[in-house]
């Protein structure tokens, strides 16, 4: 069957819900939170319309949402959930549990700022705070990537048995309608076969206990297994991304998507929806003679060290755009990127721009202003300061 996309104008949240439907998820346990809510509303609608045969658990909290997902996944079912910010934070304990139990749950997190003060707007600190839980993290630039990301996530997660978070921006994607090319069910089924679980709780002839106490004599090895699975995941991500491109024309074989890198003096590096605006701005900057490019980090976990090195080797500077902050240090992507390069000896000049926290709009004009600043840094070879709170009212 040839791929003729089913084009729909949908919000990022609906793109996520359609992807879950097309992935034939079997259990959904979720709790409402702005701006994630319309994902589960849409899934409830699919069930109500008879479009989906899903066991839907309307749990009483996000902690229970992830716990119920873990229970369902341990039976061998394909499981989906979604959350945001405070909800994700409440789930934190169980995120470790899902990864430690090696359950390939896929979750969409709508990036939203952590309170207080209350905010419902875009910010990456919620998901980046879950960095060390053992989950893989994919940041979507647009609604198409939300849809594609969920489908690929199941394939990758179920290959390496590691849970995966697909991350979209609050409102900027979650509530924005865009054209999304969906995939006919038959072709999704060919791409994504039913799950083959690592273990299940349904073999009563050979019963097992999962997650028992491991003493210092044994715990260590299980951590290593997860670390290895993440290393393995890099290969799987690339091959699944390539296969996706071959089947559906949208290539995801790179964990970092780049543009104008060959002759760029410096690149903007960042994650998620703000990179769409960066791409638009870079086109304009190129016309104005700036030798600038972009590097969009799609997968934050596992971290694409090798691809970052290739980029670092070809540019003089990297302007990191962090819509997040780790208090007492700096933007989180900035820390990660610097750390990844340290032992390679390849050290382009890097500056961290803290932008758009709590949903402050990040515009083409902002990208141009940062380009102006970064150009000076690259030309002089000197950092006036390492971290710039770009949007700060002064």
């Amino acid at each position, binding site marked *: 069957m040839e791929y003729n996309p089913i084009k729909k104008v949908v919000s990022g949240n609906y793109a996520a819900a359609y992807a879950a439907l097309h992935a034939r998820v079997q259990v959904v346990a979720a709790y409402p939170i702005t701006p994630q809510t319309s994902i589960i509303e849409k899934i409830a609608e699919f069930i109500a319309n008879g479009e989906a045969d899903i066991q839907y658990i309307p749990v009483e909290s996000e902690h229970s949402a992830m716990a119920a997902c873990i229970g369902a996944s341990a039976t061998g079912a394909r499981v989906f959930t979604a959350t945001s910010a405070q909800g994700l934070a409440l789930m934190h304990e169980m995120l470790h549990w899902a990864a430690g139990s090696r359950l390939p749950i896929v979750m969409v997190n709508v990036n939203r700022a952590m309170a207080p003060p209350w905010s419902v707007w875009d910010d990456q600190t919620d998901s980046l705070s879950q960095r060390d839980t053992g989950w893989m993290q994919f940041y979507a630039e647009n609604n198409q990537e939300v849809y594609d990301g969920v489908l690929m996530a199941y394939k990758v997660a179920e290959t390496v048995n590691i849970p995966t978070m697909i991350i979209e921006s609050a409102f900027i994607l979650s509530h*924005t309608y865009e054209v999304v090319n969906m995939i006919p069910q038959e072709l999704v089924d060919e791409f994504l076969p039913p799950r083959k679980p690592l273990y299940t709780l349904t073999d009563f002839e050979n019963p097992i206990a999962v997650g028992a106490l491991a003493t210092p004599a044994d715990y260590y090895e299980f951590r290593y297994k997860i670390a290895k699975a993440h290393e393995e995941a890099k290969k799987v991500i690339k091959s699944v991304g390539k296969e996706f491109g071959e089947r559906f024309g949208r290539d995801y074989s790179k964990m970092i998507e780049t543009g104008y890198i060959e002759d760029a003096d410096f690149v903007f590096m960042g994650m998620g929806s703000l990179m769409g605006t960066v791409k638009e701005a870079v086109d304009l900057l190129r016309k104005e003679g700036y030798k600038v490019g972009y590097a969009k980090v799609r997968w934050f976990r596992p971290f694409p060290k090798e691809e970052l090195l290739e980029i670092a080797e070809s540019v003089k500077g990297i302007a990191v755009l962090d819509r997040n902050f780790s208090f007492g240090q700096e933007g989180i992507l900035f820390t990660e990127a610097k750390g990844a390069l340290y032992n390679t000896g390849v050290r382009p000049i890097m500056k961290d721009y803290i932008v758009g926290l709590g949903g402050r709009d990040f515009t083409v004009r902002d990208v141009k202003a940062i380009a102006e600043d970064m150009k000076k840094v690259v030309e002089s070879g000197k950092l006036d300061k390492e971290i710039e709170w770009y949007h700060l009212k002064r």
Partner: protein
Amino acid sequence: MIEIRFHGRGGQGAVTAANILAEAAFLEGKYVQAFPFFGVERRGAPVTAFTRIDEKPIRIKTQIYEPDIVVVLDPSLLETVDVTAGLKEEGIVIINTEKSKDEILEKLKKKPKKLALVDATTIALETLGLPITNTAILGAVAKATGLVNIESVEKAIKDTFSGELGEKNAKAAREAFEKTEIFEV
């Protein structure tokens, strides 16, 4: 790329109007983007929504600051909101009102190139029985801008609202399309 900004009040369907306009343009093969102002407005409070229409994929992820077209669903907003803020020189303004061109122009801070007026509230009340003007005003948008055909608007409306509700709303749009007055300023 054409950028459109809608002004309405919570409950009048400005966000839905932005979505339906996007859907109509999509039906004509365009790339589209529609989104609300990311606020927490409740019913009755001023609301803003946006649509972008382009021939190529739309990558930009910011709000609209310099619209090509401004659509006002509730005439009372002219008293409190600067609806023409950032409007481009060649800009078009479409307003739901019973008032005359001159009365309206007096209220606008910036003069548009083109002004389109329609009494969408009366049309909505007559066709739907409710003062929800979002579908009617889209008829005026089609007429004043030529961005989309009225047929595409009607289809997008019927895709959004099923059955009789869709028919009635499409009728409201068609009627507004016919009754819209356009003035070159």
